[in-house]
């Protein structure tokens, strides 16, 4: 469905089999499929974990935690069953990479879940796919069925004596469920409300059993690491940021699309070379480098390597790999409003700072953008956001606060231009509803 793109700088690891018919299990096997899991079965579990740890693979969902490290937290002995849960509830605005993996290479996700399960000693895995991706759920259900039919899943896989079951699961529309503890609640058939941590899912997860939760792209990378070796994978990226990443280029670009580039690829080059630059002769105004929850970067800040540590240093985050580019015809206040409108809609309402904070921010920004803003609002918007930071069970509160603070800090002048009844300077005349000015 979604168009594939390419660029000479791409290093194809996860996207190696895209467009090659790998949804068919025989074709997948032809393309080196299910070799990594057989190799893993012959390895000691600790050796698998070390291999993944040394590869520098970090969580592709956004948090960027070392995957092997995460696996090592699962206790060796557990009275309750252990689980592996693949997070395919991709819903961070700007992100559309897992969709391509499920569409073109579903077996790589299954194989990744299998290797994770073998590494932590689990016999059950779940692959959670968001409800909107029905066609991908159909592809995944068939892929799992095919793997069972071949004897790759079920009892005594590949004659190793190891039993392993993998099931699919579907959501029904909720951004919050992409957060790991809410994801478990949803899989247990409940509202997706986050759980308090500690205990972390690696110790107490699904139905109380130790659970490894990884993003779909993370798990799809694992078979390649096992086959190619940790050193090969680590060398593709920058120190402590191994491998490649699917970057979703979106917004005002000449050639938007999902490109697989090495970690640490320069953002400026990504926008002007890979993405083809800004169309229609416009200038770059701002970049959201890793999905809507990451703080915005100014044009003078984009000469930065795209890896977790470099972006942290630049005051933003690598996040989920969704690079959203804004040209100079866009109003930042409106962009901030739309971002907040999303978080207000998706806040589950469990933690008061997030529930009330996002709601007040939306109300204030709506009034502000319509020309009803007063000077005090600007500091109030910042102050409200600041008070959400770190005060919620899950990072949704932070995800709403961090970009908003960055918008105010970096584009204060533009906020001031909206003050005292002035209509948005970027809107066509008459398109913004005029609200009374509050004095």
């Amino acid at each position, binding site marked *: 469905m979604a168009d594939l793109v390419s660029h000479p700088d791409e290093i194809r690891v996860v996207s190696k089999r895209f467009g090659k018919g790998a949804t068919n299990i025989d074709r997948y096997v032809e393309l080196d499929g299910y070799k990594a899991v057989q190799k893993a079965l012959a390895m000691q579990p600790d050796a698998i974990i070390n291999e993944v740890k040394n590869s520098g693979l970090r969580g592709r969902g956004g948090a960027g935690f070392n995957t092997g490290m995460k696996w090592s937290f699962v206790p060796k002995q557990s009275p309750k069953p252990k689980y592996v849960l693949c997070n395919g509830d991709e819903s961070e605005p700007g992100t559309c990479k897992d969709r391509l993996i499920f569409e073109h290479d579903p077996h790589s996700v299954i194989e990744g879940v299998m290797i994770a399960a073998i590494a932590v000693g689990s016999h059950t895995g779940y692959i959670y796919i968001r*409800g909107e991706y029905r066609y991908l759920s159909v592809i995944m259900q068939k892929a799992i069925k095919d793997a069972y039919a071949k004897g790759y899943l079920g009892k005594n896989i590949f004659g190793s004596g190891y039993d392993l079951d993998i099931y699919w699961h579907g959501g029904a529309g909720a951004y919050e469920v992409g957060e790991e503890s809410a994801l478990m609640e949803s899989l247990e058939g409940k509202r997706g409300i986050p759980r308090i941590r500690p205990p972390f899912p690696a110790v107490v997860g699904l139905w109380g059993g130790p659970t490894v939760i990884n993003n779909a792209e993370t798990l799809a990378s694992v078979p390649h690491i096992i086959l190619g070796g940790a050193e090969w994978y680590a060398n593709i990226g920058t120190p402590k940021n191994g491998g490649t990443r699917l970057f979703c280029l979106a917004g005002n670009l000449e050639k938007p699309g999902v490109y697989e580039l090495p970690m640490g690829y320069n953002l400026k080059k990504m926008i002007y070379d890979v993405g083809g630059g800004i169309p229609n002769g416009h200038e770059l105004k701002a970049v959201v480098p890793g999905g809507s929850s990451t703080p915005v970067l100014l044009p003078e800040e984009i000469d930065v390597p795209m890896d977790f540590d470099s972006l942290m240093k630049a005051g933003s985050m690598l996040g989920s790999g969704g690079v959203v580019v804004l040209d100079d015809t866009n109003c930042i206040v409106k962009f901030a409003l739309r971002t907040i409108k999303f978080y207000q*809609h998706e806040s589950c309402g469990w933690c008061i700072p997030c529930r009330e904070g996002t709601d007040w921010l939306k109300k204030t920004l709506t009034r502000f953008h319509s020309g009803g803003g007063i000077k005090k609002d600007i500091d109030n918007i910042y102050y409200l956001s600041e008070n959400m930071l770190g005060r919620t069970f899950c990072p949704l509160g932070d995800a709403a606060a961090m970009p908003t603070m960055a918008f105010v800090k970096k584009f204060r002048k533009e906020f001031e231009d909206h003050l005292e009844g002035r209509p948005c300077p970027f809107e066509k005349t008459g398109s913004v509803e005029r609200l009374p000015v509050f004095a």
Partner: protein
Amino acid sequence: MKFSPEFETRFAEMLTHYPTKRSVLVPTLLYAQDEVGYLSDELIAELAKRLELTELDVRNVISYYSMLTTKPRGKYNVQVCTNIACMLRGGEELLDHCKKKLGIGHKGTTQDGLFSLEEVECIGACSWAPAIQVNYDFHENLTEEKLDKVLDEYKKKGTQ
């Protein structure tokens, strides 16, 4: 309450996937909704009974998920994404266009029951924005002209 044989097969199979019955609830609700059109009182009672939950438990879950609805919708639910990536490439204009063309607002349904309209959050088509979903089908890289064509095709299909 009767569901299709495919629904029953899937339901029975899914029950074997989890240690608790309740776990099948979220995907099952969505599949049931697809068959009936919406989550009717009768349907909620039926699923509650099958999963040994109270109706309130089921309603609690329904109210959380944005794709689930207890009100009937049109045959084709047009979901227009206006989140940031789509907004930058004209998602809001597409929504306005849909409103005018269909003569309904957000969460409205046309009189003939053919179309519903919904403004939705990110549907995961950011690199192919602006995009809409009609029921489960994606339509990407849209312009107003392309959108007209898409809607006309659904209209033709729906009135045949």
